[in-house]
C-alpha cells in the first residue's frame, strides 16, 4: 500500500481532498504543504475525505488545527467526512467534534457549504 497520497479536486467552488494511506508525523508534512497551497490560492472552502485513510496520529490531527482558523476567518471551513470508526474514535476521544464538522458522507459536507 502506498504510504500516503492526496487526491485534490475542485467541485462547486469547494476543494476536496481525498487522503490515502497513513497520516503520521512523517506524512503530515505533505498534507501541511497541500493546505498551505490551497489557502495561498485564496480557497477556504475545504472538505477532507478520509475514506481511504487507514491511520492517523496526533501529528495528522495537528494539521487540521493549524489551518481551521484561517479558513473560518475567510468565511470558509474545513469539513471532514468519510471516516472509519477507527479514525473517528481518535477524533472523538480528543473532543474534535466540538470544533470540526464531521460527516459520514461527502455529499452531506458539500450540502453544508451551499
Amino acid at each position, binding site marked *: 500500500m502506498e504510504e500516503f497520497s492526496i487526491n485534490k479536486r475542485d467541485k462547486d467552488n469547494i476543494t476536496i481532498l481525498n487522503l490515502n494511506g497513513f497520516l*503520521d*508525523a*512523517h506524512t503530515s508534512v505533505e498534507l501541511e504543504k497541500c493546505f498551505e497551497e490551497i489557502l495561498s490560492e485564496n480557497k477556504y472552502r475545504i472538505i477532507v475525505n478520509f475514506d481511504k485513510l487507514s491511520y492517523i*496520529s*496526533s501529528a495528522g490531527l*495537528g494539521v487540521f488545527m493549524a489551518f481551521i482558523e484561517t479558513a473560518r476567518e475567510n468565511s470558509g471551513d474545513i469539513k471532514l467526512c468519510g471516516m472509519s470508526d*477507527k479514525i473517528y474514535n*481518535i477524533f472523538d476521544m*480528543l473532543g474534535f467534534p466540538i*470544533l470540526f464538522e464531521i460527516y459520514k458522507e461527502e455529499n452531506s459536507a458539500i450540502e453544508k457549504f451551499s
Partner: protein
Amino acid sequence: MSSSNKILFASSTKNLSLLRKFIEVKASDFGFDESTINQIILSVDEACTNIIKHAHKYNEKEIIEVEIQQETGQFKIIMKYKGKGFDPNDIHNPDMKDYFNKFKVGGLGVPIMKKFMNKIEYVHNNSEDNYLTLIKSLHS
C-alpha cells in the same frame, strides 16, 4: 517480520511505519483484540514521535531501541534512547475546551498515551539512557 522482541532504528519519522508494523505483530501475538492493538500502536507512535522531535531534534544519527517484554497478562513496550528525556506523567492533559478555543496545535501525544495505556513509567539512568515504558494489561 522478525521474531525478535527488539528493534533498533534511526531516529526519524520515516521509520514510524516500520515501528507500527513491529508493534502490531507483537501485540497481536500477545492476544489483544484489534481495537486494543490500534490503541497500543498509536501510543507507541506518539511516544517515539516525541522522542524524535524533542529528545533528538530530528537528528537521524540518534538511535531508538524498542523492546517488548511479555509478562503474565502484561505487555510492556520499553523505549530506550539518549538525549533530553521527559516523563509523560509530569505533563498535565490540556483543557480541551481551551485548546479548541485558542486553536492550539500539538501536545496531544501524551494525552493519547495516558488514555490508552494502563501505566507509563520513565527512568533516566546515570549513563544518560532514558527508558520510557508503556504498559498495557491483557484484561483491562
